[in-house]
């Protein structure tokens, strides 16, 4: 592997920049003449806009202009859309209501934007925003998805009667019902998956620059996928044609899904820049982030899991109601369907599955993908059900899982997915050993002597990453293909630039992508630059989400490297008068195998560009591009075990140990993988113990709009993690990578809740398992 090649524990190249404050984020961007935007937002969760009077605001000091939704509409700017078509089980298409970038008729959640103020300073823009008089007629509000479906509730969109967006199903209802009817045992449980706020460290920001000379727009934005942003803004929102719109996502401080989507602010700032003739920058404050960043999760499900007399699962029936908020965000329809219900087989051989999913409009912020996106919801549902079933059946949770593990591959589930490789028992065994599972009883007894309730719980997760085969997702309703592109440019002195459509916003691509090149050519990673995040530099790309950068983005790089290697060998063979099949590349040199003839890498590169002595007919230069479309999803899996102590007097849960044993396929940089797992676990533990978005059901006000009320996990909430991997390479991509970005957040919540319910002897517990809830459950009958 070499010291900097594949598998090496290389320190991150980008960290010098980040740790010394030299990162360049969107809010750091300044251009001459730039002005500042503040959005006027609805204080009501549901209201008609009778009128907007901005005359006084426009006259205030420093104000360039105040623009509203009627002006935006008159200029032909389109609606925001959801890019994945889902059909209800009756065949009808999903019922998407209009989402205007600036509401001009109706506001549907607290924070809905109604106008933009552009001024010389943020303070002046804020002063003017307060002077914009919006006359609202308040309407009744509904925030809960189940309630929103009931008759007589407030209606959000005329397109969606009863607030129902779609009523979708997957699997075989008849076979599943039959299995349940014939079962020796049926476990039933209601599962709530709590709504989360994504909370990236860097809040969203955008800088819109219109150049009247060229009729050209530049958009700096906090995006995980700048090319998708350009595509959508061009093709659907009529901001500008693609060739007149450059989107740049510079350093981005975390996304977790929330920066996949195009939000109103990017569109409005670009439009406002043209209207006002000045560059317009907007940066979200933390309250706006809580109000308007797309939330995650918010599912309510009922589950029936049927077992035969040998404790084998023979059927699984799931009914889910998913809250999508006030508008359909870009990928919102895919999350509770193809990213969720297709994973309901888990690691288990289940012959019959049926899932029904209804998605619902409510007067809350839009809900979309958040780290894991559908897969955490599936895993939490399945793994809490498995634990509950084990208790009901009187078998150990490990045994129940072993009995039901899928053991031969490929394995076709009843819900579309075809698992390519895995060894679930290896992860289970590794986790049980690392946690000293067998010694738990003694530890529990010792804790009891101190008056503490100790519990242990496990979770065996699987997820689908490396999204995704373009034709397959196209057939399921995706509006885009999910391939990736790469270009490898060897400079005349042999240094290398890799252009990728993947986007790094915390994942460490500048290091890991360079490791691929170091591994291939034996050049130092410092001679390799990774270029990403700019539509003028990288021709096209689909961005980073769904743990796809390794499995898809790196595979595209590998394909381009193959082409570069082939041409480099031809050049070297010509220079050394050897056969190209005899050329090997080692330690930055091209050698004729079995001889002492060598050409240094830089000399070969120079030869490519001087073109004085190239093989006959060869084009000068050394630059190759590739597109890679995956053949299948990848299927990371693993086993997590959590051990807790609950203080019965206060309900406080202390995590004694957390063990993660993962199968990520081949690994490029173990240190970065461990960092990804640590971060994922912190987010999953945050969901399970601390985090939860609360709206006041009476008026739709967000009660958790700051860190005073939204509990983010902190270092002292978390234990030191015990992580390991036992890997089965993915057979479907050249590097054998499965992906690791989301696993921690997917697998951890059920392990923690299973541990707490084990400790307190009461299974009725919802996330977040706050001290109050745990205390109440510990003192209530099961």
């Amino acid at each position, binding site marked *: 592997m070499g010291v900097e090649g594949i598998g090496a524990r290389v320190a991150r190249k980008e960290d010098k920049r980040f740790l010394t404050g030299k990162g360049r984020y969107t809010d750091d961007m300044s251009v001459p003449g730039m002005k500042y935007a503040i959005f006027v937002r609805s204080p009501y969760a549901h209201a008609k806009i009778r009128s907007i009077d901005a005359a006084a605001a426009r006259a205030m000091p420093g104000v360039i202009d105040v623009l509203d939704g009627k002006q935006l509409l008159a200029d032909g700017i389109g609606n925001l859309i959801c890019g994945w078509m889902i059909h209800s089980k009756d065949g009808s298409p999903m019922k998407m209501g209009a989402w205007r970038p600036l509401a001009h008729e109706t506001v549907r959640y607290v924070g809905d934007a109604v106008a933009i103020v552009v001024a010389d300073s943020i*303070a002046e823009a*804020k*002063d003017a925003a*307060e002077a914009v008089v919006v006359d609202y007629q308040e309407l009744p509000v509904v925030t809960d998805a189940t309630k929103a479906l009931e008759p007589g509730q407030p209606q959000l969109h005329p397109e969606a009667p009863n607030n129902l967006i779609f009523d979708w199903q997957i699997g075989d209802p008849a076979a599943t019902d039959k299995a349940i009817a014939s079962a020796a045992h049926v476990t039933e449980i209601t599962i709530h998956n709590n709504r989360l706020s994504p909370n990236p460290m860097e809040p969203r920001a955008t800088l819109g620059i219109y150049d009247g000379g060229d009729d050209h727009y530049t958009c700096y934005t906090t995006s995980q996928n700048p090319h998708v942003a350009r595509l959508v803004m061009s093709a659907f929102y009529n901001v500008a044609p693609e060739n007149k719109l450059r989107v740049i996502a510079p350093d981005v401080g975390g996304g977790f899904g929330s920066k996949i989507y195009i939000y109103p602010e990017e569109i409005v700032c670009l439009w406002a820049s043209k209207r006002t003739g000045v560059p317009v920058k907007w940066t979200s404050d933390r*309250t706006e982030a809580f109000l308007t960043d797309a939330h995650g999760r918010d599912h309510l499900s009922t589950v029936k899991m049927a077992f035969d007399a040998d404790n084998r699962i023979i059927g699984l029936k799931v009914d889910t109601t998913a809250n999508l908020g006030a508008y359909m965000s870009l990928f919102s329809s895919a999350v509770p369907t193809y990213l969720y219900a297709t994973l309901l087989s888990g690691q288990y051989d289940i012959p019959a599955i049926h899932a029904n999913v209804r998605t619902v409009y409510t007067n809350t912020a839009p809900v979309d993908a958040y780290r894991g996106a559908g897969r955490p919801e599936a895993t939490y549902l399945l793994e809490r059900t498995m634990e509950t079933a084990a208790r009901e059946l009187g078998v150990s949770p490990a045994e129940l899982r072993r009995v039901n593990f899928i053991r031969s591959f490929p394995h076709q589930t009843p819900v579309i997915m075809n698992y390519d490789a895995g060894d679930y028992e290896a992860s289970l065994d590794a986790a049980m050993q690392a946690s000293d599972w067998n010694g738990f009883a003694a530890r529990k007894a010792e804790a009891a002597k101190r008056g503490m309730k100790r519990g242990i719980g496990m979770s065996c997760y699987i997820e689908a990453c490396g999204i995704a085969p373009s034709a397959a997702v196209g057939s399921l309703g995706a509006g885009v293909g999910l391939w990736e592109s790469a270009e490898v440019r060897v400079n005349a002195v042999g240094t290398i630039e890799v252009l990728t459509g993947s986007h790094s916003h915390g994942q460490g691509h500048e290091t890991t992508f360079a490791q691929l090149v170091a591994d291939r050519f034996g050049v130092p990673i410092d001679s390799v630059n990774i270029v990403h995040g700019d539509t003028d530099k990288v021709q096209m790309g689909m961005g980073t989400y769904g743990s796809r950068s390794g499995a898809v983005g790196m595979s595209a790089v590998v394909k381009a490297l193959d082409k570069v290697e082939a041409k480099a060998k031809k050049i070297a063979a010509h220079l050394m008068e050897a056969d190209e099949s005899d050329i090997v590349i080692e330690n930055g040199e091209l050698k004729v195998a079995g001889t002492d003839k060598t050409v240094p890498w830089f000399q070969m590169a120079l030869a490519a560009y001087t073109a004085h002595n190239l093989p006959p007919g060869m084009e000068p230069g050394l630059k190759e591009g590739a597109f890679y479309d995956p053949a299948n999803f990848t299927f990371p899996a693993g086993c997590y075990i959590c051990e807790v102590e609950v203080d019965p*007097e*206060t*309900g406080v849960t202390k995590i004694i140990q957390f063990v993660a044993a993962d199968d990520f396929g081949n690994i490029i940089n173990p240190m970065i993988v461990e960092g990804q797992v640590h971060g994922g676990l912190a987010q999953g533990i945050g969901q399970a*113990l*601390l985090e939860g978005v*609360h709206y006041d059901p009476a008026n739709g006000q967000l*009660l*958790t709009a700051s*860190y*005073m*009320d*939204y*509990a*983010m996990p902190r270092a002292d909430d978390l234990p030191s993690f015990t992580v390991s991997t036992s890997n089965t390479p993915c057979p479907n991509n050249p590097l054998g990578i499965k992906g690791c970005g989301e696993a921690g957040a997917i697998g951890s919540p059920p392990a923690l809740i299973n541990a707490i319910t084990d400790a307190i002897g009461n299974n009725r517990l919802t996330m977040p398992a*706050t*001290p*109050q809830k745990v*205390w*109440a459950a510990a003192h209530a009958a099961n």
Partner: protein
Amino acid sequence: MYETHYHRASSIQDAVKLKQAAEEGKYLAGGMTLIPTMKQRLAAPTDLVDLRHVAEMRGIKVTGKTVRIGAATTHSEVASSAELAAVCPAICGLASHIGDPHVRHMGTIGGSIANNDPAADYPSAMLALDATIVTDRREIAAGDFFTGLFETALEDGELVTAITFEAPAKAAYQKFANPASRYAMAGVFVARRDNGDVRVAVTGAGSNGVFRHRDMEAALSSNWSPDALASVTVDASDLLSDIHADATYRANLVKVMAKRAVAAA
């Protein structure tokens, strides 16, 4: 933040004068509540009178068992005072768990008391220690000082300059922190004097701010031990309910924290 005018006071007299001259002035101590509130445009004082450079308002003085803490003394200074720890370690412990290091190096005891946030820690100590709040014009017993949520007996323009108290024989503070804000969701300060008098003050839980729990005081006066609280009932009807904790749970926490405080004292 709206535009405001900043003044640096050089003395107590100067501070009071500056505040008097202002249209809608505010004293600024550590600013740990006031500045965030202003940044969110929820407060808009025309003038800020900075107290942090008033030398006579800073510092800790212990004479025998008599303690005097200047109002502009930071939490960090209280937490790390060896002199204070020798006579009343409980108040040092309380200060060491307020907020985070940034807050402890900026926030002041006078600011905390004058603000009287119902979830702040210091008011419970003042009440349990039977402290005296010294102002620019008078002395006020802690029992008369805290009058409601963010309400005190301070008159318009009146400035807290110091607090004084007699060190107790035994004391301790136990806090159950809100999982999000880490403010007290139930904080209990217990103190027992040499003459056997006991005071139990509760913060974070009361719907009207900090309060004394007389039944616990009575129980502990006759038997200073955690077990003495077993039979005491904490009435939930006067306690706060919010998304983090309802009144019933807070009532439980008050009792548990009181027991733990007595055990720790």
